Structure formats: C-alpha cells, structure tokens
C-alpha cells in the first residue's frame, strides 16, 4: 500500500526567486493493495516529482509518503525494500549484460544462490527476453532497454510497484506482455501505481485513476466514475474537461 499525504514541493531558483516552480501543492492519494492505480496528468503536472518523493530521491517541503506504513523520509531503506521502481529517467550499465544487470539488482535486494537464479530465470521468461539475457546492453533498442529495466524492478517480486510511464517506446507485443504481467501482480495482491499519458491504457488497466494537475489532485475514481463526473463518454474528453477548470472538480 502506498499513501501520500499533503505533499508540497517547490524548486527554488536561487538567483531569481520569481522563477520558483511549485511542483506539488498539497497532493494526497492512496494506492491500495490488489489494485492498479493510475496517475494521469498533463506534462509538468508533478507526476514524476511525486513519484521521486516516493522513492526518497526528493524530500518534500511538507507532507510525507508511506510505503506499507513506513515513512519514506524516516526509514528510506526499509521503505524501498518493499518497492520496485521503474523510474522516469533510466539508463543501463552498458558494460554489463542484461543478466548481470538483473542479477545486480536482485543481489541488492538481498537475494542469493538458487533463489536468485530462479527468480531471474522467471522474470526473463515472463518478459520474454531470454534471448537478450547474455548480451551486453550497449546496443539495445529502446524497447529492449525498457524490458531490462522492468526486469530489474520486478525480479525481487516487490509488494509495491511504481512505474513512471512504463509503456513509452514499447511495441504492441511488449505492451501486452507488460499489461498481462501487471494484471498477474494485481491478482496476487500487489499494489501497483503507474503514471501515464495513454488514455486507452489507463482505461483498460486501472482500477482507480488519479488525475493530477498543478501539483494537486484534480479528480479521482474509477475510469467510469471520472467519465460520469465530467459527463463525457471517453476518458480522454473527461480528462481534458477535469483538468481544464478547477470549478468542475470541486463539485
């Protein structure tokens, strides 16, 4: 379970105070176990800032985030132990093979020996990337890179799983693989939180959608509830309408 309470975060330009960006402005939401929660928002709405605060990479000016009840700011290491992360900006260790890289992250989560081997074999099979496993990652395509990153985030079977726009650059087959994978995790009772721009995906996959605009929650509910709230049939139209005016959301 991932909970976020009243997050505030500003990026202050020391030279020019007017340039200060208020990225988060009292953002609160909950992502429950056994559900897929989607964060939807326009560019610059504060999605990535919110998720980075969740990993403990950024510290909030006000408010806090908890993972399975553990405050990220208080015990970041214990909080991250229950977390699988697919970050906004990701790179690969280009001098390692995909297998070595996944192995590295599995070890960082304390896995060893046979358990680790099996877990890696499983995740390689699940993501259909056994052929890639023993190649150095240097010439990988965008989609292949995504897969490696996903594999290293999933290998330790995290209870909570945060993905920052996981489907950008993936082809249809890979997107389906990912979707099925997430659905399986959900069925096992894991908590999945992901941000996205792609409406169809959010509509198809998410149990709950949180629409973020200007650093706060503009609306939340199931895709259907959001459509009803906005009085539109398509989620996309509902989204545009909901972030378009604050008055409509207050209702």
């Amino acid at each position: 379970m991932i909970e976020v309470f009243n997050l505030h975060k500003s990026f202050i330009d020391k030279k020019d105070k007017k340039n200060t960006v208020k990225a988060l402005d009292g953002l609160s939401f909950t992502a429950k176990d056994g559900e897929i929660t989607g964060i939807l928002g326009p560019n610059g709405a504060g999605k990535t800032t919110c998720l980075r605060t969740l990993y403990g990479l950024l510290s909030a000016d006000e408010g806090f985030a908890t993972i399975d009840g553990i405050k990220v700011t208080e015990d970041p290491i214990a909080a991250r132990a229950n977390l699988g992360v697919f970050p906004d900006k990701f790179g690969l260790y280009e001098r390692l093979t995909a297998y070595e890289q996944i192995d590295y992250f599995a070890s960082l989560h304390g896995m060893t020996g046979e358990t680790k081997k099996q877990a890696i074999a499983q995740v390689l099979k699940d993501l259909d990337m056994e052929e890639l496993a023993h190649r150095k990652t240097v010439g990988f395509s965008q989609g292949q890179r995504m897969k490696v990153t996903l594999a290293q985030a999933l290998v330790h079977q995290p209870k909570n799983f945060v993905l920052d726009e996981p489907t950008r650059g993936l082809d249809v087959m890979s997107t389906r693989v990912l979707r099925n994978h997430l659905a399986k995790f959900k069925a096992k009772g894991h908590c999945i939180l992901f941000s996205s721009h792609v409406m169809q995906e959010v509509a198809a996959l998410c149990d709950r959608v949180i629409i973020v605009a200007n650093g706060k929650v503009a609306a939340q509910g199931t895709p259907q509830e959001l459509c009803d709230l906005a009085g539109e049939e398509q989620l996309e139209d509902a989204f545009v309408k909901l972030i378009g005016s604050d008055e409509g959301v207050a209702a």
Partner: protein
Amino acid sequence: MNLDFIQLKALIVKEYKEAFRDKRALMAALGFAILAPIMIVVGTKIMIEKSVDQPPVYIKFTGAEYAPKLITHLSDNNILAFADIPESDQAIWDDRNIAIEIPEDYAQNMAEGKPIKIHLKADYTDKAVLVPVSRINSAVREFSMTIGYKRLQLRGVDVRLLNPIKLVEQDTAKPDATFMMIAMILGMYLMLAAFMSGLSVAIDSSAGERERNVLEMLLCQPVSTLKIVIAKLIGASTISVIGVVLLLVLTSISVGFIDLTKIGATFSLGLSSTLVLILLLIPICFFASALQLFFAFQAKSFKEAQSTVTMILGVPAFIPFVLMMMDDRPQWLSWLPIAGQSLIIEDIFKGVDVNWLAVFTTSGVTIAITAVLVLILAQRLKSEKVVMALS
C-alpha cells in the same frame, strides 16, 4: 550471509566488472605506469652520459709509428690522433696544440727493459688543456703499469707487493644534484600515478553514472549510500593500486639497466624498499580516489567533473615540489597526506632508514581523512541536490 554483505559484494563486483571492461580507460590508466619507467630510464641515461662522457681529445703525435700498441691504448680512451679530427673542431685543437713525441728507439728500449721517455707538450696555463692532459697522463700511466706488472709476473713476483696499502674511498657527500632530480621526479611520478590511474574510473562511476541515468535507479534501491560510496571507492582505488604497483615493479626492473655509479650515486629499488613504497602509497590511492569521487559527484555534469578532477591532479605534483623548495619544514607537514609520504619517499631514495613512526602517522592521517570524505559523500548522496545535479 547477511544482507549487508550480500549488497556490498554485489556493489563491488559490479564496480569491478565495469572498471575492467572499460578497456580504453584501463589502458589510459596503466599506460601512465608503463610509460613512466621508460621515460625515467631514457632520461637518466642521457643525463649520465652527459656527466661522465669522455669527449675525444686530439693530439699531434710525432713518431706514432714506433709505438702502435700505445696508440691503440690511447685511442681506446678516446685520445685520438690529430689526423682524425673533424673539421669543425680543428681550430680548437690546433689552438690547444697538445703534442706527444715518441722517440725512435721506443721499440728497442722496450725490448731491453730500459726506461722510455715520451714527451708531452702543452701550454699548462691554458685551463682547457688541463683535463685532456690529465687524461693522457692517466692513460699513459695505466699502460706503463700494465707492462710493468706483466714483467714482474714473468719473474715470479706477486704484483700485490707493489701495493702494500690500499686506500678505500667512501664518499659521504650528499648525493649530487642529478641524482636528487631523479629521486624527486620518481617520487612525483609515484604520487601522480596514484592519482592518475584511478581517475577515469572514479569519474565514470560517479558523474558518468549520473549522466547515464543509472545512479537514480541505484539510489531507489534499499541500499545505504555509504555502501555505494565504499564500493565505488574500492573500485577506483583498486585500479589506482594496480597502477602504482605496476609502476614500481617496472621502475625497479628498469633502474637495473642504468649504471648510476658512474655519477657517484647509489640508487636501488630493492624488494624491501619497493614493499615499503607500496605500503606507503596504498592509503594515498584510497585518498586520491575518495577525493576524485567527492568532487566528481558534486559536479553538475560529466564535463564539469572531468575538469574539476583534473585540477586536483595538480595537488600531488605541486606539494612535493613545494617541499623541495622549503628549507625549514614544520613538523606537522610530515603528518599530512601527500606531503608526509613525499618526505618518506625522499628518505627511501636517499637510502636513509625509514622512520616507521612517520609512516604510520601519515598513513593514519591519510586514512582518517579518506574516511571523513567517504562519510560526507555518503551523506551528500542523500541530498536531492547531488542526486539530481541541481544547483
């Protein structure tokens, strides 16, 4: 196995894999260690040749045909006949006008065992003549002695009887300037090697990883930043230690090829002094890598990291140089990293006994400063400014 150990092992193994697979950086690091001994050998050889070279001396012989063996002996000592002179030097030696006269009855007197008089004519007030004259003098005396010894031996007399007392000379003067120069350059090279060898690995594993967006991913994992810093430090300093050891081994082999005794210096890099040097330089390797990681992580980009860290290279080059210039060295200088080690290295090269207390104090201080750097860096890595390279 506990979690800390598993994580640390995974981190270190990964740093090693990346460092040793980066062939280009590795070559750059170790190339320095390989090049340095070659440069030292070539440079020293040239210096020695200059200082002990026997330039040719040209003499006007008369009656050379009577004593061919003597002439051969002289020409072995680079004392040559005027006829062989190159045109460019002709005027000089014509002016010096050194002449040797060998008498007609040389061969006959030699055969009969009578004393032979050879005349050496030169203007002894001319200073330029003095060195050639003394060389001719000793060459002729040497030749004469050899014949004398042979005569005595033929008559069954032990030639040692001629030298009842032998004076053994020991020079207690300070090693000359040439030798001090070599020692200083080598000392500086060793320091530089400690800083140079790990440099690219240190930058690559810190600013490089941040630029390639892999650092962010790593910092999202349940690993303490201290472990990350320690693993990176071990990765970079291992390369640095390899560089230093390689440099020392190659240097100790290559100084065998230079005959320093020719310039009156004794310099050997024996096994024991090599080991002391390695012991002394290992903390410096760690210190250098910690310093480089410290600045590279705080730089805003890979480029900035490269330029800042390269500037740090001035430190190991500058400090030994300043020490050379100082006449009164305050005590605390010998405790500081780099300065302390430079002083001890100087002692080792001079052949002075190693002051172990100084070795341990300066190593201790170096390790302590390294530890502080690591702790501060681990703390800094928790800050979003360093992680995201914000200003």
